[in-house]
């Protein structure tokens, strides 16, 4: 089991790194599951980027914060494109950076250390049973907290 998260940013980064490597090797079947935290993260990230692109277009001005449109081509939150684009191939470094930043923000937003650890463990591919052992709680609590994390993150997703 991984070390307790001392530094949120490192954790987010390593989670993203392992995710990106795994995605390149086609190892993330849970992306097919609409409740998976990764899917949620990708969706949130993609939506945010889309909004930024739209904003940038409206402003007809790039602005330092906007990454190239090509990074997220087709990554529309309403369709499967955002996910499909990263399954089975390595996401671009720019997209990885975007994911990391977003995940960092979402983890911070959880506010509770147990929830943060749970989210990271889940995203690293541990099963609910393994997480229950790691956190010293029952399976029902893992499930409850996961539902809670999804609730909190879904609220973030809304503009």
């Amino acid at each position: 089991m991984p070390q307790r998260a001392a530094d949120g940013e490192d954790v987010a980064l390593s989670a993203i790194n392992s995710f990106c490597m795994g995605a390149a090797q086609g190892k993330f079947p849970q992306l097919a599951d609409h409740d998976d935290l990764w899917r949620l993260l990708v969706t949130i990230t993609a939506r945010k980027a889309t909004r930024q692109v739209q904003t940038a277009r409206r402003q007809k001005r790039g602005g330092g914060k906007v990454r190239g449109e090509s990074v997220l081509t087709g990554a529309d939150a309403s369709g499967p494109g955002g996910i499909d684009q990263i399954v089975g191939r390595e996401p671009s470094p720019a997209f990885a950076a975007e994911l990391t930043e977003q995940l960092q923000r979402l983890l911070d937003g959880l506010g509770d250390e147990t929830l943060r650890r749970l989210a990271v463990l889940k995203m690293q591919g541990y099963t609910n049973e393994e997480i229950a052992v790691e956190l010293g709680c029952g399976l029902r609590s893992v499930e409850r907290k996961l539902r809670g994390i999804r609730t909190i993150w879904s609220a973030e997703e809304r503009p």
Partner: protein
Amino acid sequence: MSGRHPDDSYRSASLFLRLDEICDRFEACLQAEQRPRIEDFLASARESDRPPLLRELLLLDMEYRAKQRDRPTAAEYRERFPDHAELIEDVLGRLGDDLSPDAGDRAESPWQIILEVVGGPHTGRRFVFTGHDGFIVGRAASSHFRLPREDPYFSRIHFVVEVNPPHCRLMDMNSLNGTYVNGREVQADDLHHGDLVKGGETELRVWLVGDTPRPEAVAAALDADGSLPPPAIPGFEIVRELGRGGMGVVYLAKRTADGARLAVKTILPAFAAGQREVQRFLRECEVLCSLRHPHIVAFHQMGRTGNVFYFAMDYVEGTDAGRLVQSHGPMPVGRAVRLACQVLEALDFAHGHGFVHRDVKPANLLIGHGQRGETCRLADFGLARVYHASHMSGLTMLGDVGGTLAFMPPEQITDYRNACPPADLYSTSATLYYLLTGRHVYDFGEDLSEQQLIKILTEPPVPIRNRRDDVPQSLASVIHRALAKDPRERFPEAAAFREALLPFSSAH
């Protein structure tokens, strides 16, 4: 991650955080084995949070209770949270398939008795009974609910509860400080839903849960002279009554098809049963028909007519060992040992085929005469086990059962549901003891059944040589080994017991 549901998130993040905090506290109490009550935690939440909170608490409660082999049912929760029946149905319904393997068993049982500790150091503990069982409460090691070092007012064996849902009976075991039901001191009492049992500082609440109406007690239709008229059994013509036992009446009957003379045992169940339970009972009995051995009375046919179950079996012309001792006094050593050896032959065979008799006693040793002299055949093989496992028997251990406890091993009280071969060895030895002395293993005298139970559970048997001094010391050792309270200290199997007895079979 399959099986997710669309409502699988919370209305709002703040709702989740409120619920999660309460659930964490509830789980911490569960982990500390403090037996927290859902009701208390529910009360600590705001009104509108209660339904989603109950959902979470139920899931946690079931998860932790399952670890203790305690399987709550929808019925129990409905009883406790009558306003949330739909939610309970929903939560338990979704779990349906991944419940335990016990789920099937439970479905067979229309009622459950739950004893919940509501006062004293073990508050929150719950004991769930779905079938016929014994439950000992006290400080003794053999107790099921081992109380409380912390409760000094509890006796070693304080009281015993016999359960066969929906029936439940409590018997105080001569406890020092008494047992109280709803504030009234009792010796023995039938327990009902909602009763509060108190011993020392410990209080137990009785819950009866079940969707089915209580079974009707079966009333026998008596003749003018107070006796039961023989039932009309299809395919048989009753010749005369042969005898009466704890479970029913035995008749000599002629089978109309071929004129064969058979003994027909009838059981009028104490309580009526549903079609499903009757079928299950008869199915289990039919398995007994396959048991064939020269020293076992074979079952041929069984069924139900009206309220009465009947079992047609070999007719053994002669008497039984109990009557023999009553009319002629204790038997010579060799004769008694020879009968016991024949019983053990039968048991060895049956145990090898997975059958346990569970009711070996002098009255079940039918004595006839064969070509090689006196022969003994063991009657009612397994019938008691099957009958008592059903709800139809009602309560059999506590109450007015008279002498039937005399040959019962202690584990039949402490581990009611598991009848094992060593129980038969104990009962065979107690039977041999009786054949040799005309007395029981303990001085029961006029004892009430609770005193008999205490003696069986806690006192050493009376040395057989105190009762009859011409029993050789070495034979006495064999008999007492088979009477050990701990089944593991008895002979490992019937054959070994028989072998140890054989040297005494040629005595006069």
